[in-house]
């Protein structure tokens, strides 16, 4: 009886130990299936035009939320000045709005585009994501770098693509990932440092841009046609503009977000 009792006890311990000890390692890179070979009409550079524009804010810019980094001494050391979120990147004039993702939402037809050769990049530096908002192509490689001497995890929360959460405990670590479906926008967050967040727009064409601190953006080499262009902001929602572009034409468009009444669509 005692022998059997001891056996049962040992079995329990072995089970528990197995649960604690076993398990696989962490993937350091993840890739989806490569994008299909481009097929369809090619854009003629001789007739292509540009769309330029500006994003402005109507009303007083809300204050960005203050960040407390004292949970990680490395982050405190890297940021000696008070830190704030990058939600409202407003220009010196108080009107221009940066970090707005502008892209052609509709009207492109059946064009085919060369796949990008260079990878898109996001860096974790000074406990912030750089850039905060960016765009990339379906099937394009995304290079994720940790430049900080502390741990980060990059956690993507897409709705259409596969979710991933990759740890980067060592400074200089690089991982890559590709998205296989278009999606605007895919949020990124670091679960270690709750204030770190970024957004990427994944598209199947190259006509996207992010407004700079002066609120300016430019969509280059668009074939003639009528397009729906959308501007996306992480808090203020989206706005769309229709634009018709002739051959070799350059058009100016503008987006104005109302800070008092945001329209959240995402």
């Amino acid at each position: 009886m005692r022998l059997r009792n001891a056996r049962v006890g040992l079995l329990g311990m072995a089970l528990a130990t197995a649960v604690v000890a076993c398990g696989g390692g962490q993937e350091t890179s993840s890739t989806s299936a490569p994008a299909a070979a481009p097929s369809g009409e090619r854009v003629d550079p001789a007739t292509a035009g540009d769309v330029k524009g500006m994003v402005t804010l109507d009303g007083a810019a809300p204050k960005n939320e203050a960040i407390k980094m004292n949970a990680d001494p490395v982050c405190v050391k890297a940021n000696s000045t008070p830190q704030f979120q990058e939600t409202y990147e407003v220009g010196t004039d108080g009107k221009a709005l940066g970090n707005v993702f502008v892209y052609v939402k509709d009207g492109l037809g059946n064009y085919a585009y060369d796949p990008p050769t260079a990878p898109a990049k996001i860096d974790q530096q000074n406990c912030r994501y750089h850039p905060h908002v960016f765009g990339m192509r379906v099937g394009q490689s995304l290079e994720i770098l940790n430049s900080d001497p502390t741990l980060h995890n990059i956690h993507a929360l897409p709705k259409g693509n596969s979710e991933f959460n990759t740890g980067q405990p060592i400074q200089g670590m690089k991982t890559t990932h590709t998205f296989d479906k278009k999606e605007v926008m895919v949020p990124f967050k670091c679960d270690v440092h709750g204030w770190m967040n970024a957004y990427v727009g994944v598209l199947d064409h190259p006509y996207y841009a992010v407004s700079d601190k002066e609120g300016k953006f430019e969509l280059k080499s668009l074939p003639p046609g009528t397009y729906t262009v959308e501007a996306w902001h992480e808090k203020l929602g989206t706005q769309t503009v229709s634009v018709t572009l002739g051959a070799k034409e350059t058009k100016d468009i503008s987006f104005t977000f109302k800070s008092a009444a945001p329209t959240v669509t995402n």
Partner: protein
Amino acid sequence: MSHQPSAMTTMLHRFAKLVVACTVLLILAGSLVTSHDAGLSVPDWPTSYGWNMFTFPPSMWVANIFYEHGHRLIASTVGFLTIILATWLWLADARPWLKWFGAAALGAIIAQGVLGGLTVLFFLPAAVSTAHAALAEIFLCMTVAIALFTSPRWMEGYGTAEAAPYGAEPDDAALDDAVPYSAENPLVVSLSNHEPNRSSFDRPVPGKRLILRQAQDERGVEGPVLSKRLILRQAQDERRVEGPALSKRLILRQAQDERRVEGPVLSKRLILRQAQDEPRVEGLRTSECIDDVTLRRLATATTALIFLQILIGAAMRHTGAGLAIPDFPWMFGHVVPDHWNGRIAVHFTHRAGALIVTLGIGILSAYVWSHHRGRRELAQPAALIVALVVIQVTLGALTVLTRRDIWINSLHVVCGALVLTTSLVLTLRSWRARFARAEVRLEADTTDITVRRKERVKKPRTARKPRNPQREFLGVFRGLCEFCFQRVRLQADRRGRA
């Protein structure tokens, strides 16, 4: 003669309480993980950023990793403590159901660990995270129940103040009713006659040395405690059994036969336990324990309601509905929300559930105070649960008003667990009388021993032949080995002669 709980029993109870305390700490750590949104701050499992969980450098426990990794380490500690607790129960406790209950608790904590891992690997799906929270509460309830079942007061059956104190001499009437089984079977000594107010099955089994000492005392043998073999020899002599001293197993078999216990030979511990049980004074036990059907129903329903309420709370927490209704006590400025969606419905259900649970606890406590105020084991948890529910409702309101302050939110979770376990203790104590009855498996046989021996002779021996395939296999294997060994030796002898 006074008999106190053995040191082993006391230590086991204290250890069970330590496991309870660690589990409460674990629930606090878990709630802090959710409150900090740190559940995925360590993206891998069971490793931590590729390191073994236990060798992950403390210098890397920064920001939210501190909460998630700390939660994992505390969970591992609780896991190991539960292994010890289950093993201890298995080896030291006489109650088979409690042994299995300890094993079930171990199974629960292992399942809980796996659920925790799955929720990380699958990016915190609400269903898995809610199940993780629910199993945490169930495991806490199991550890609390074990601590309760191993407590001296539970084993005593919560004797009334009027009943004789623990270990006191019984009155004459009780002694007259008792069957002094030890006179019939000198192998075992009844302690029950000296402890009429203790429930039969839950008393700790006295140590072997104590049994031998008592057996010696009863026969008036002075000097140091004799060896077990000598005691057995004497016992045999008293029954006039001829031949060499019987083995312990055979003695136990005989003791069992005398009581007409069928089946395989029971362990020595169980025989001692039964011997202890047999001479118990009927009637005393039931008068000690509260046997109130209404109380049982009320307490059980309240505990079930609290658990359901915690489940809803967990679902609310893991679906991000904690602030779906942002004001308190109103809901969007009304008594009932003026618009609805899934999150608002979950949040509203939790608030409505809080009202129902508070009402249930109020009724239960009022019942205890009106009917069993003199029973400390019921009155104390009844008062405590009222205080806890007041704190819990306050914390719930503050969670909304402070926009989910991390510590207030986490304490709300812990306080909810304490409300549940307090209600569970009250419930189990209300069921104590039923526990005692269920545990008695062998009734005292008061017929004359000579009659029983005659009856035993008539009974076919095959009816109680033990079946143990493992032992049978080992017996066959041993026989084969011996046969082979003899053949080899025989051949060696022949060669030697040649």
